[in-house]
């Protein structure tokens, strides 16, 4: 049963991934990426990561994709002009070569590691969200603070970039 679900999610993810690369209309590409994000969330549920699945839907499908769609609509791009550049064949060749190399490396590696203490039953008994929260606010508190700083810098940067001449005007008045 799990294998069937995995096959369905994987098939939809790959098909929509191919569509994102090939579709010439940007709106259609964004919408197929939306379908892909939902199915990636399904993969996370299969892996017992319910919190990450919900965050995937809320942040990726809800916030980031809406931002993309908004920008695509704002720029009013038509899909009429050529959507792929000249190195189409060369680019695909590089991508496929990278994939084959990855597969060769992976088939030779044992894919093993030291197993931790967070077994599925233990996480299920405390709850997935609580387990992530405990790890996030104890072991990874410092990276968590840095992530908040990154988001703050991104917000200020976006405001400065999109408000045209916000720096120039205030500096010009002082001179």
């Amino acid at each position, binding site marked *: 049963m799990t*294998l069937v679900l*995995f096959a369905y999610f994987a098939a939809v*993810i*790959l098909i929509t*991934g191919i569509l*994102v*690369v090939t579709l010439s209309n*940007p709106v259609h590409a*964004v919408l197929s*990426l939306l379908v892909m*994000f939902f199915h*990636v969330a399904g*993969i*996370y549920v*299969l*892996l017992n*990561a319910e919190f*990450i699945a919900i*965050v995937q839907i809320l*942040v*990726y499908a809800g916030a980031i994709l809406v*931002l*993309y769609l908004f*920008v695509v609509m704002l*720029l009013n791009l038509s899909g009429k002009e*050529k*959507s*792929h*550049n000249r190195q189409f064949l*060369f*680019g*695909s060749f590089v*991508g*496929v070569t990278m*994939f084959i190399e*990855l*597969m060769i490396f*992976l088939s030779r590696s044992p894919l093993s*590691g030291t*197993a*931790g203490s*967070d*077994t*599925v039953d233990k*996480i299920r008994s405390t709850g997935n969200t609580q*387990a*992530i929260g405990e790890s996030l606010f104890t*072991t*990874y508190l410092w990276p968590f603070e840095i*992530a*908040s700083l*990154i*988001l703050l*810098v*991104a*917000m200020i940067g*976006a405001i400065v*970039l*999109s408000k*045209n001449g916000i720096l120039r005007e205030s500096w010009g008045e002082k001179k």
Partner: protein
Amino acid sequence: MVPLSYYIVLSSVLFMLGVIGVLVRRNIVIILLSIEMMLNAANINFVAFSHYLHNIAGQVFVFFVLAVAASEVVIGLAIIIALYKNHHTINVDEINLMKW
């Protein structure tokens, strides 16, 4: 029970699609979408290894990747809009401001 290698193959194919998208598309928005696809491939790997190695740290790192993806998309789209205001194109073949 799905073997771990299936997830790794899935994420590798997704990463390959992202790389191809970055290399062959002309529209900057689609290039950013391809980068999102690559980040998602990395996230699938993180969660799969977290599940199979019984370590919650993988899922915590998905959280950080999400934060980076969110800030990346905000800055990237702001740059794209500023570019479109000044040059009226978001075609990477026609943007050669920083060409040597």
